[in-house]
């Protein structure tokens, strides 16, 4: 991974080129950041038809506001921030609930069994855990899903996630604790539903 000073220097060069009218530089920015943008959009927006439009909308905003970027964060983080808020705005406009009803409904009941309770089960469960986790992630609310993805899959720091979602680090940490707990409960719930 590139060091932060190098990353910032590269960002400066690219931004300067785009502001001077170099569209190839903007294309480079899109290619370098579309992974992060896709992660946020796919986690926040359920409708596949809206996702592509959303991504284009994000990059048009980035292009229009690039002159205002002051390098207080990495360019990718700033683009992530625009993506997250564009998605939030879209969800609010469509009146889609951001927090699901009844997280607590999934509290494991005393009769619930837990994966990995014995060695043989461990072997079996590891093979299907990937699908269990994917299903459980789909059931999480968009914000929890995004936070978990940014931290555990994109390996961003609390500070970078805080800049993207515009929340203090402490709040990000507490949201992540809650998100992991809910994810674990979803996994347990799906697992117990499957084993009947």
């Amino acid at each position, binding site marked *: 991974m590139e060091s932060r000073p190098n990353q910032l220097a590269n960002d400066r060069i690219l931004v300067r080129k785009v502001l001077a*009218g170099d*569209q190839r530089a*903007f*294309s480079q920015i*899109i*290619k370098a950041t*579309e*992974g992060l943008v*896709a*992660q946020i*959009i*796919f986690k926040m927006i359920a409708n596949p038809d809206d*996702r*592509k439009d959303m*991504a*284009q909308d994000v*990059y*048009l905003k980035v*292009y*229009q*506001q690039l002159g205002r970027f002051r390098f207080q964060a990495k360019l990718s983080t700033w683009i992530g921030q625009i993506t997250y808020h564009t998605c939030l705005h879209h969800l609010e406009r469509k009146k889609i609930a951001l927090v699901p009803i009844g997280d607590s409904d999934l509290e494991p009941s005393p009769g619930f069994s*837990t*994966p*990995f*309770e014995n060695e043989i089960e461990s072997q079996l469960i*590891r093979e299907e*855990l*990937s699908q*269990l*986790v*994917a299903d*459980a*992630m789909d059931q999480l609310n968009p914000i929890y899903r995004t936070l*978990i*993805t940014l931290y*555990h*899959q994109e390996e961003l720091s609390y500070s970078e996630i805080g800049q993207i979602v515009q929340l203090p680090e402490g709040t990000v940490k507490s949201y992540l*604790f809650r998100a*992991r*707990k809910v*994810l*674990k409960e979803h*996994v*347990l719930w799906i697992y117990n539903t499957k084993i009947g």
Partner: protein
Amino acid sequence: MDLQHENRMNTTHLTDQQLQLFVFQQGHGLEPWTTHMATCKDCQLKATLYRSVLEEVANLEKPVFNVDLASQVISQIEPAKSRIDFSRVIVGVTLFSMLSWLCIIFHWTSHELATLFTRLSAMATYLILLTGSSLLIFLVISLYQEFQGKMKRLTLS
């Protein structure tokens, strides 16, 4: 007393938050939990579940757009770009014409300029300066407001 405290630490199960700290933020201050985790099967199981679930999250397939996003976006920003260039050209041409016109006037009237202000009364000079500077100020304000309006439209569009 300390021993009792230690025993209580070892027999009390870790909370969900403590388990997460233990699994995801290895570091200082976790020693009391480490002792408990070494012996408690229940907490070990919960920690394994957390660790395995989040490892799977890290290994999930990353989403990609199945279109060439860069070329689609670039094709949409071309018209906007040319519009900005066009306005810059207009500003440039206007400034150039104004400067050229001033130079021509100065060239034609340079022999009379030296005597122009000495012939005018003080009142007339003040009036000319006041009118000229007022016009200039209004022009600058109007240009600035127009520029701000354009920037606002660009940001909101």
